[in-house]
């Protein structure tokens, strides 16, 4: 059964004939080539494909980190291709959250400070920040050890911190670029289960790039497969409804 859509019924993202070309000297590389895709609100979409298939480039375009050469990406009624640099930065800050393969936590900040960073950027009042940070950390089951630095934590804990950081500004869409790529399979599964749980409890739209098809089939609602910059196919996974996801994988690392 497809995940619920929002009351308005608008998709979270509508991608229309999007291309992204890079110029490499004389030749032009079509990293993303005429892709059209609709991501319904509340869906957990997995982008699959081999290296160089253009899935990460497409994710960056959707996340507002990059601009398409042509085509439009519409989110909340606005075409990202037409936003000013400042508006695009605001979109990244307020509407989306980002999780990376290599976590990208700032090494000299504690967990709490890393999670607080988007709140600083959003100029959230100091009094409110601590509660928001605490809430985000509890959501990823990392309420302890929050005064530690990233290097003192395991990979799974670092990725949980990164997820908390992505969630702290209460985004509408969460983008995850190979979130399990640097983790062992058990920890990777736990992270995906956590994402699935967040998707259902926060009614979040999640777009994840991965090349681990078996995990994607278990946790995502739909798979979109890319090759050579083109969207090859999309298919529903028939994964169990998010509320029924077994939680034993997530409990271990938490409390």
């Amino acid at each position, binding site marked *: 059964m497809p995940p619920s859509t929002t009351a308005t019924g608008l998709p979270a993202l509508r991608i229309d004939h999007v291309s992204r070309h890079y110029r490499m000297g004389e030749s032009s590389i079509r990293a993303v080539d005429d892709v059209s895709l609709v991501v319904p609100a509340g869906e957990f979409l997995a982008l699959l494909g081999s290296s160089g298939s253009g899935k990460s480039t497409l994710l960056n375009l959707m996340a507002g980190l990059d601009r398409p050469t042509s085509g439009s990406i519409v989110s909340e009624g606005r075409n990202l291709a037409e936003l000013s640099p400042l508006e695009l930065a605001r979109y990244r*800050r307020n509407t989306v959250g980002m999780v*990376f393969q290599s976590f*990208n936590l700032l090494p*000299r900040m504690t967990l709490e400070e890393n999670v607080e960073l*988007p709140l*600083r*950027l959003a*100029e959230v009042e100091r009094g409110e920040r601590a509660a928001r940070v605490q809430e985000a950390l509890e959501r990823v089951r990392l309420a302890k050890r929050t005064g530690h630095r990233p290097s003192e934590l395991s990979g799974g804990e670092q990725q949980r911190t990164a997820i908390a950081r992505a969630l702290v500004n209460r985004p509408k869409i969460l983008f995850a670029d190979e979130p399990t790529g640097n983790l062992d399979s058990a920890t990777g599964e736990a992270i995906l289960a956590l994402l699935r749980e967040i998707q259902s409890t926060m009614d979040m739209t999640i777009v994840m790039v991965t090349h681990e098809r078996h995990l994607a089939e278990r946790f995502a609602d739909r798979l979109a497969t890319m090759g050579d910059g083109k969207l090859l196919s999309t298919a529903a996974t028939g994964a169990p409804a998010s509320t029924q996801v077994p939680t034993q994988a997530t409990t271990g690392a938490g409390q």
Partner: protein
Amino acid sequence: MKLRDMTELAVRNLREAILRNSLTTLGVAVGVASLVAMLSLGVGLQQLASSRLAKSGLFDSIFVTPKTNLRGPGAGPPATRAAAPKARPLDEAARVEITKLPNVIEVYPQIRFFTEVRFDGKPFATMVAGMPESSKQSGAFDGMQGAFFSSPNADEAILQIEFAKELNPQTAQLIGKELVLRYAERQSLPSETGDGAPNSGGFSVVPKEKHLRIVGVVETEPASGFGGFGSGRLLIPLPVAETLRAAQVNDLRDVLRDTSSDKPAYASLTVRVKSPSLVDATEAKIKQLGFGAFSLLDASKSMRIFFSVFDLLLGIFGSLALAVATLGIINTLVMAILERRREIGVLKALGAADSDVKQLFFVEAGVMGLAGGVLGVFFGWLIGQALTLGTNIYLKRQDLPGVEISAVPWWLIAGAIGFALLVSLIAGLYPASRAAKLNPVDALRYE
């Protein structure tokens, strides 16, 4: 991002590369220090020179005489003398009138007379001079043994050191001792003879004595105004000197001159004004009152021009070090961009606008500039103190009084810190805009 968060992050980032950033800040500090040291030297020397000039009393004094006095008896053709028969006498009323002029601090007569002093039963001949109260500030009495007169009317004396040594080689022992001033008092002849004859302007001389307590010994020879007290070796308060009515050196001229006045008149008065720049205007006003007036040209003006050029040259040399420090800031921040590409990418991915990134680097440059500026002012002050100390040790060996050759006024402190901040912000412009322009995708891919 709010400034407070920005500053917190900036300070945090600076602490991450503590050695490099400290060295850069130290570079700024050295630059500011050289600037401050140079300028404080210029300012200090200027203050020293101008205060010496001001204290000398040469440039804020006007020498006033009756008009006839300048001409002298018998000078000029008789017709001229007849045309100005009513030259105003320089009497007490004139003194009060001049005192009331704007910007006049005080008006006093020059009182000097040669007389005999008895100390310890032995006679000494010396020149006595009356000191106006204002001479206390002239600097001549700084560093004296003992103290200045306790009040303007005290029967006290200050000895010039050469004279004091004649009385007792251990000059310190003189303080508190008493000496007797023997002087000739001038008395008008009519009262002396009692025959009611009309005032002829003549006088008789009556020997008198005055007991004075020695309160101090002064090393430098006090000078105040032209024709001043330079040759005075025994100094007494001017009001006391006035009451003595001693026969003065120039009294004989009074006798020769037809004063056509029965009131005692001054041969001359010294007028001190608030600052050398007011001398011209006040001198003109005194001339309007009908007196002769004379002053030295305002030499302080050309001195100020000289020191402005001097300060400019010192400032240019000082700024060279700061220019090198500026290159250091640029270098440090450009290095920081290379090192922190990934961090910049993360910040941008989390929603930092270009302006946030730019401001972050800007604030980092500013913090280094500010810290360097504050530190530099302190170093510069230390250098100035060291120069003063060294100079004074040298002067002491030459048996000369110490001087303050370096001065750090508040405007130099504020200006130097402000300048350091400004220069560092300018240095931060290029690195900051380069950091802001980083493409987040490229920055995140960077390992």
